[in-house]
């Protein structure tokens, strides 16, 4: 198996790696770049725990090949806070107790940020369908939805 050399940008920083042709981006992030914030809950795109963005587009990193991201811009949970300043979604998740075990939290935050980028004032239903690709087994989603609603309110300055 010939390794593929890839140059890319992760959270604003240039990154280079060599990966197998069939190696998912998730494995590259976790095992080659040391970014373990994206989690493998299923490896088949059904749980959303590995959510990242590629050129701003929300994806499951388990359904993207590392080889594909040549020249792309990748953003992961590790790049969500601005230095010591948390993103409002991060802050609201803690304040609203929107996490219990926390394994799904990075994926939810990345997906919620993508949702609010497209729709700054979503209804509860839009939030629920917007986050349907992210499984949480602990919370029943109640507090997650409330945290996203509150963060959206704050981000809109309402």
């Amino acid at each position, binding site marked *: 198996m010939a390794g593929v050399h890839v140059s890319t940008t992760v959270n604003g920083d240039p990154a280079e790696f060599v990966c197998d042709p069939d190696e998912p981006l998730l494995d590259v992030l976790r095992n080659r770049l040391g970014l373990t914030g994206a989690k493998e809950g299923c490896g*088949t795109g059904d749980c959303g725990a590995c959510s990242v963005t590629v050129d701003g587009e929300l994806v499951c990193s388990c359904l993207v090949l590392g080889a594909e991201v040549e020249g792309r811009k990748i953003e992961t949970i590790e790049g969500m806070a601005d230095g010591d300043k948390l993103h409002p979604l991060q802050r609201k998740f*803690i304040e609203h107790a929107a*996490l219990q075990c*926390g394994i799904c939290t990075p994926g939810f935050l990345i997906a919620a940020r993508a949702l609010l980028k497209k729709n700054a004032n979503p209804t509860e239903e839009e939030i629920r*369908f917007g986050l349907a690709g992210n*499984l949480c*087994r602990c919370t029943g989603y*109640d*507090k997650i939805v*409330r945290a996203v609603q509150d963060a959206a309110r704050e981000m809109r300055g309402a």
Partner: protein
Amino acid sequence: MAYDTNFTGQKFKVVGTRPLRPDGLDKVTGRARYGADVSAPGQLVGRVLRSPHAHAKIVKIDTSKAEKLPGVKAVITSADLPDLTNGDAGMYDILVNCMARGKALYDGHAVAAVAAVDAATARKALKLINVEYKVLPHVTDVDEAVKPGAPVLHSKMFTDGVEPKPTKASNVAKRTEFGHGDVEQGFKEADVIVERSFKTEQTHQGYIEPHACLANLGSDGQGEMWVCTQGHFVYRNTCATLLGLDAAKLRVTASEIGGGFGGKTHVWAEPLALALSRKANRPVKLVMTRDEVFKASGPTSSTSIDVKIGATKDGRITAATATLRYQGGPFLGMWAELGAMTSYACYDLKNVKTVGYEVVVNRPKVAAYRAPSAPMAAFAVESVVDELAHKIGMDAVAFRIKNAAKEGTKSSYGPTYGPIGIGPTLEAAKNHPHMKAPLKKNQGRGMACGFWFNFGGQTSTSLNVTPDGSVNVSVGTIDVGGSRASMALIAAEELGVPYENVRCVVADTSSLGHNDMSDGSRVTFSSGMNTVIAARNAKKVLIQRAAKMWDIPEDAVTWEDGHAKPAGANAGNFPPLSLKEIAAAAANTGGPIAGHNEFVADGAGVSFATHICDVELDPETGATKIIRYTVIQDAGKAIHPSYVEGQYQGGAAQGIGWALNEEYVYGKDGRLQNAGYLDYRIPVCSDLPMIDTVILEIPNPNHPYGVRGVGETSIVPPLAAIANAVSNAAGVRMTHIPMSPPRILKALDDQAKAKAKAA
């Protein structure tokens, strides 16, 4: 255990508030470390070869080709795990489950494992292992397994608990019985009797984090393991036994845990990782894939339950029976027993009898799943209770209130209750606006009650005051849902210091005495009580030190608001000494200040809940939607209410999934058809409404703050509450969980056909 049990109406300063959790920042920034997030230098990748057959004799395993593959550092089979269980049957079952010995007992049963330099090599090595199977007849259904002529899994399984003991082997491992009174006489006194049979399919805890560990074991018998677990001490003890190690020489550190719900109370592949590491003499990281989690960890039982209840016209239950058959996978469990114990725990019954049968089948070894066994029993019983109320013409809540257990009731499983919350949760349900809200066409409302024992268990806790006066609490119970915040609240409450000055950590197995697992809703109860005691012990030391600093007798010093104070005017006129000041002087007054405690936390308070659910049905497709859901539960005392609500909501959501869509689907070949999140359908965000919660606080007299467990009870009522709601909406009694659209549509069609036939 000297503490005041006279707590009712206690006033708290920080307990009951909602501060930010200490692990929040790590978890929202992606730097919290879970099972698969840690690596070691020189680490190998472990992978497990699993049986594709439900039941098969292993004739031969040839690993020679795999061993020769470059990059493969170790290959193991059951031959590498000699039986060191010394007659402990339960431990032997765990050994057999970790790696098949002579016979594969289910689809996914481990038969060999490899450690290689990378994942691709490990995968390739698995393909090079040649296993010769002789396929045997299998059985996966709990009712089929008990029929005469069913394939028998174990030729030496003779039903326990039956007199005389059978001489013919069967798949019924054990019979248990509970109850009191004379049920035959009770049924004679009944005006109305309802009798029905129910079935529930197998579900999985569905934690998002697959099992993962990093094992490092040397040939000198010393090792370390990083692992996602609900009980690192138990994992240590079990792994040490299976591998022939001294427990003290295996240091286990618990990772953050990505959900467990009972499924991470057993070891699965961890002993294999250790055995591979020992053989390769290198660290081995072993992470299950999602389909391995479904196939080869520990889902809950599928069941078959018969219930019969009789009542008088004025609504008093005169007799109740239940026969419960629970499968435990291929091994003896205690699952039917727990079902038999919990069935009627909500009620005050004169005549009650429950019988449980533990059944073995060719499915994975069953593990605990949140209030294990209780939801299925509650589904069956609460369905019949509802039907009985309808038949008598009584309101379903009023009927339950009339028959509810109370303080002094002899429970159906034996003990007599102290103060309990079933009555109050029912009264709260009766008065809740949800109960009175109007329903639209095709909508139905249901309610149901649930019970769980809760548990105490062995607990060891250390509290250390640092030189700067901040406080460390080291617990040995895994934080599955915010318990570090609760422990910090409790320590802050006891010591009178700010919550922010306390940090609670989960210590490794070398740092504390044995702790039982985070199960049985026991953490806030037992580690919480232990934190109270440890803090009180630390306070004793703080008082000693203050006495020394003031040069007065210890009994002349009291502790108030985080300060040592002279006990009275006679003790002397000293300005109060803060914890910080005493800590700063510790080096000169006797050294480090700490409080410890180890004990068996007796007196866990039983817990009750009542749930109300509205469901909308599409009669043309059988589709359902939960449109409103309310959880009312007794917490005893809510230490951190946000995380109590979270437990209520999470349990309800899991129950909703179980009730409507989740199930293991086995093919005729005995293989699991839906080992993934695509077709094992746990609720997604858009499936659920907001889940309203009502926290009642009926204090547990055996806990200094009145805490009961809260984690499990919330999954007990949903199956029944939703079944009652769907049955009310559909006009037909649903008796098979999950109530998937094909099952609902079929019930509607069958009913329409029956009506047409009758007309």
